[in-house]
C-alpha cells in the first residue's frame, strides 16, 4: 500500500514511474513492428546513432532542455536510418552490415563529442553522459508531459494506419502491387520508432535501449497468434516493466532505474518463453510427455516395433 501511496504522492517516484511506463508502452508497440519486420537491431542502431545529435544540439544551443536535446537525438537517429536504408537499397551491402557500420560510426562520433565537451569552459559535460546509461531519476513533470504527447501522437498514427502497417510488415510486395507508397510507409514507421527510442534515451540510455524495443514484442508474441492482440499486449508488458523497474529502483537501495527496468522486462520475457500456454517451453514439454504416454509407451510395452 505504501508503494501505491508513493506512486501517487511522491513527486520523484511518480515521474520516474510514469515516464518509464510511457516509454515501455510506446517502445513495446513500435518495437513489435520492428521485430516482425526482422529489424530487431534497428532500435539499437537508432539509439546509438542518436548520441552525436544530443551533443551537437547542446553545442549549438547551449541548452539542456529535454526537448532541444531530444530533437537533436531524433534528427541524428533519422539521418542514421536514412543512410542505412539508402545504402542497403543502392549497394550490395547487407542490412546487418550497415546496421553495424551506422551504429559504431555514429556512436564513435558521439563519444568523441562527449569527450570534447568535457574540456569546454562550462565543463562537466553538461550532464550529457547520463544519456549513455539513462538517468530516470532526473525525469521531471515536464519531461513526462512531453513523453505523453509524443507517445499519444505515435500511437494515434499506429491506430489510424493499423491495416497499412500490418500489410507492410507481412507482405510489402503485395502492398506495393496495390499502389501503396511502401517506401513512404517504411519511413513513417521508422520515424515512429525513432520517437520511441528518443524517449528511451533519457530513461534507460543508449546502451540498453535495444532491449526495450525487442523485449515486449518478443514476450507478447509468446501469448498470442494475432497481431491486434500482440500490439497492445506488448504495450502492457513494456509499461509494466517500466513501472516495476522504477518502483524497485527508487524504493530499494538506490539501484539505477534503467537496468532495473531492463531486468524487470527480462523477467517478463523469460516467464513468457517458459509459461505461455501455446508456445511456452514448459506447456510444450508437458504436452510432449502426454503424447509419449499415449502413443509411444503403450506400443513399447506391447513390444510393437516403433
Amino acid at each position, binding site marked *: 500500500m505504501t508503494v501505491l501511496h508513493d506512486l501517487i504522492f511522491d513527486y520523484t517516484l511518480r515521474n520516474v514511474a510514469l515516464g518509464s511506463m510511457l516509454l515501455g508502452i510506446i517502445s513495446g508497440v513500435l518495437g513489435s513492428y520492428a521485430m516482425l519486420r526482422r529489424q530487431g537491431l534497428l532500435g539499437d542502431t537508432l539509439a546509438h546513432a542518436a548520441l552525436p545529435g544530443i551533443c551537437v544540439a547542446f553545442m549549438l544551443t547551449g541548452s539542456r532542455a529535454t526537448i532541444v536535446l531530444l530533437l537533436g537525438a531524433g534528427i541524428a537517429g533519422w539521418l542514421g536510418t536514412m543512410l542505412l536504408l539508402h545504402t542497403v537499397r543502392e549497394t550490395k551491402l547487407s542490412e546487418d552490415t550497415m546496421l553495424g557500420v551506422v551504429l559504431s560510426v555514429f556512436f564513435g562520433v558521439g563519444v568523441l563529442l562527449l569527450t570534447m565537451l568535457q574540456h569546454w569552459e562550462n565543463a562537466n559535460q553538461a550532464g550529457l553522459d547520463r544519456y549513455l546509461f539513462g538517468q530516470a531519476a532526473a525525469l521531471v513533470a515536464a519531461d513526462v508531459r512531453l513523453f505523453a504527447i509524443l507517445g499519444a501522437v505515435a500511437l494515434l498514427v499506429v491506430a489510424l494506419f493499423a491495416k*497499412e502497417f500490418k500489410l507492410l510488415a507481412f507482405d510489402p510486395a503485395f502492398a506495393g*502491387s496495390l*499502389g501503396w507508397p511502401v517506401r513512404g510507409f517504411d519511413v513513417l514507421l521508422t520515424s515512429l520508432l525513432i520517437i520511441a527510442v528518443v524517449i528511451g534515451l533519457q530513461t534507460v540510455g543508449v546502451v540498453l535501449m535495444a532491449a526495450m524495443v525487442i523485449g515486449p514484442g518478443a514476450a507478447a508474441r509468446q501469448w498470442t497468434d494475432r497481431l491486434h492482440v500482440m500490439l497492445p499486449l506488448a504495450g502492457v508488458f513494456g509499461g509494466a516493466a517500466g513501472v516495476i523497474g522504477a518502483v524497485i529502483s527508487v524504493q530499494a537501495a538506490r539501484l539505477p532505474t534503467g537496468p532495473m527496468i531492463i531486468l524487470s522486462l527480462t523477467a517478463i520475457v523469460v516467464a513468457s518463453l517458459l509459461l505461455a500456454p501455446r508456445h511456452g517451453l514448459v506447456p510444450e514439454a508437458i504436452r510432449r510427455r502426454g503424447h509419449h504416454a499415449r502413443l509411444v509407451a503403450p506400443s513399447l510395452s506391447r513390444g510393437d516395433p516403433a
Partner: protein
Amino acid sequence: MTATLAPTPTAPLAAAVSRPDERAAAVAVRGLTVAYRDTPVLWNIDLDIPAGTLTAIIGPNGAGKSTLLKALLGLVPVAAGTAEILGGSLAARRRRIGYVPQRGSVDWQFPTNALDVVTMGTYGRLGWIRRPGRAERARARQSLEQVGLADFADRQISQLSGGQQQRVFLARALAQDADLYIMDEPFAGVDAQTERAIIDLLQTLRNQGKTVVCVHHDLETAPAYFDWLVLLNVRAIAAGPFASTFTADHLRATYGGALTLLRHRVGSGALS
C-alpha cells in the same frame, strides 16, 4: 510420358476460347528493359497477352520471369519501355489486378490467421485508414471457400501446409475481384491434389473471361494447363498460342546450354 507432353489444344477448349487476335490485350509491353545496376534482367521486351487467356511464362532460372511480373505491377524500376494493363496505364488499372507473390516471399510465422490474410485482398478497394468490415470479411470467407479452405479460416498461418498456404494466397487474389491475375509460381511446392485444385480454379477464372498470367516451371504439365505461352530468357524468345509456340526450336532458344537436359526430358518427337 510423351502422352502428357503432346501439345493439347483440345477441341472443347479451342471452341470455348474465341480467336485471340480479335481480343483486346490484357497486357501490352513495348520495349521493356529492366536492369539491376549494370546487368540487364529484361531486355527490350515486346509482348502482348490477349485477354481471356491462361498464360504461362516459362524460362530458365534467372530469365527474369518474376521481374517481368514485378515490372507489370510497378514493383521494380523500369529502365526503358512501357507496359499497358487492360488497355490503360497501370495506375488506372490497379484495382483490376490480382497478385499472387511467391509463397516464400513472406514470413509465415507472422501472427495472423488465414481469414485475415485473405481479407488483405480487399484492402486495395477499401482505401487508406478505413478498416475491413463485415462485407470485406464475408468476401474473404467466400474466397476461402472457393479454394476449399472454408474450415481453415481461423487457422494460424504457420499451422497450414505449403499447399494450403499457396491456396490462401490464391484466395487473397480472388478477394481482389480482379480481371487480370498475376501469379508467381502458384504451383511451387504443392502436392498433386492441390495442383489439380489450383489449375481447376485458374481454368474456371479463364472461362469466366478473366486473364491469368503465371510463372510456371514444369514443362511436362504446361501443355495441359495453359493456352498461351511466353518463352522468356532476358529477351522474349517467343509468345503466342501454346500449341504453336511450344516447339523444340523455341525451347532450344530459350534454354540454350541446358538443352541436353531438356532433350532428355522432352524428346524432340513430342514437339512439332
